[in-house]
């Protein structure tokens, strides 16, 4: 019996919602990792009972915990990414966890705040700083956004594990073609978040970066300054905003099964950061970003909140689910045509992850 599992990473722990395919009711579990900010939960490829939680606490710093039983119990990894003592840098949070690909599929990558990328080749027991990124020649001019100076998006090419993209607020997109040793800025065609002739190549505030797993030359991003697509692995970017009510927002998600199906949830503006007119609206593209259509059936029209960058996802089966910064969760089994609220009100939702259990 297939069960869909929705994992919420929130400001005060992780929560699990599950539903069997032939049932109507959702089961709630949690909080797990109580008291910790859970920024992201990664489900191991091909091993859905194995999970890793990317965490932080404002007093006690970063942590990564692992579960081998679908989230019922968690153990701290023995290693946590750390900058060198004399670097002047510190890890405030583990923002995201991503696995490698191909022959490097056992690698784990951790995107962190202060911005950097670490890799583990021993299941998280030890971590190596990819210094070509965190000591990039432009590093001295990097500045964070409202959420910090965070490496929030990590994408690994599915066939070429040496090609990695990261999205850093408010720096932009960088790409490595040598497994993370060296990094090139990839922001041509984007609009700077600060109008200035200085900061050459940086200050392009990517909010969420996604990759088409079937055609990894195609990348998409919700940016502080708009919605963009790349057809050449990030070498250049073009605006794709036809049908959107504005340019500002945080999350973006792509269907794992359909390269043309994308979702975003715009906000009114960077000054107000709420749903336009209080109408929660998901925008879907069915043509790879050429146009967008609003979807509102089942969504409230008096909600003045937002959806954070990692809080919108599409499951392997095509279900779409997102959580708001005020703790509501909405679920669609028909590609966003109709939405249902899921039970419960949760702390501020940072991330939503799905997986299917047999």
């Amino acid at each position, binding site marked *: 019996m297939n069960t869909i599992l929705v994992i919420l990473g929130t400001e005060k722990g992780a929560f699990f919602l599950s539903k069997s395919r032939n049932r109507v009711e959702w089961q709630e579990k949690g909080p797990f990792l109580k*008291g910790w900010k859970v920024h992201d939960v990664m489900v191991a490829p091909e091993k859905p009972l194995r999970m890793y939680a990317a965490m932080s606490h404002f*007093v*006690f*710093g970063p*942590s990564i915990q692992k579960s081998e039983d679908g989230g019922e119990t*968690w153990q*701290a990894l023995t290693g*946590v990414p750390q900058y060198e003592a004399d670097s002047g840098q*510190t890890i405030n949070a583990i923002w995201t966890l991503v696995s490698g690909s191909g022959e490097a599929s056992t690698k784990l990558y951790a995107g962190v705040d202060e911005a950097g990328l670490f890799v583990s080749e021993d299941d998280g027991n030890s971590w190596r700083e990819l210094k070509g990124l965190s000591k990039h020649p432009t590093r001295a001019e990097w500045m964070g956004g409202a959420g910090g100076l965070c490496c929030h998006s990590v994408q690994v090419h599915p066939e070429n594990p040496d090609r990695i993209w990261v999205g850093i607020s408010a720096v932009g997109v960088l790409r490595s073609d040598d497994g993370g040793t060296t990094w090139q800025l990839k922001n041509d065609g984007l609009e700077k978040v600060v109008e200035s002739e200085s900061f050459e190549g940086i200050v392009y505030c990517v909010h969420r970066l996604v990759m088409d797993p079937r055609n990894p030359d195609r990348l998409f991003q919700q940016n502080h300054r708009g919605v963009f697509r790349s057809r050449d692995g990030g070498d250049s970017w073009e605006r794709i905003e036809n049908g959107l009510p504005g340019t500002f927002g945080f999350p973006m998600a792509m269907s794992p099964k359909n390269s043309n199906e994308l979702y975003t949830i715009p906000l009114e503006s960077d000054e107000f950061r709420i749903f336009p007119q209080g109408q929660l609206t998901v925008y879907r593209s069915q043509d790879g970003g050429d146009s967008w259509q609003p979807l509102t059936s089942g969504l409230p029209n008096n909600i003045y909140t937002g959806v954070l960058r990692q809080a919108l996802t599409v499951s392997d089966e095509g279900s779409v689910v997102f959580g708001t910064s005020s703790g509501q969760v909405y679920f669609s089994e028909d590609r966003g045509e109709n939405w249902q609220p899921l039970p419960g009100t949760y702390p501020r939702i940072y991330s939503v992850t799905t997986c299917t259990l047999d």
Partner: protein
Amino acid sequence: MEKVQVTVCLSQLIAHATGGKTRMYFKAATLKDCLGQLQQAHPLMKVHLFEEDGRQRPHVLIYYGKQDIRWLPNLDIPLEPDSEITILQAVSGG
């Protein structure tokens, strides 16, 4: 310097770093010795109590008895037998 038994108590929030224990016993001569043993036995405690450069995290409180160790000139002070070291989070923010 004579080693004495001391108790270390810590917040449940970081008990994942100690295998679930919130109360531990060490035989140590000085405060520095005790905190060193704590980190050696449970390396994640170093991450949770100190930043990369070795400074105590700003919202971590470590008390030796009733003394906040942040205000001690150094940690080389001899420990009293059966004394207690308590690790807490500061009541910070509003």
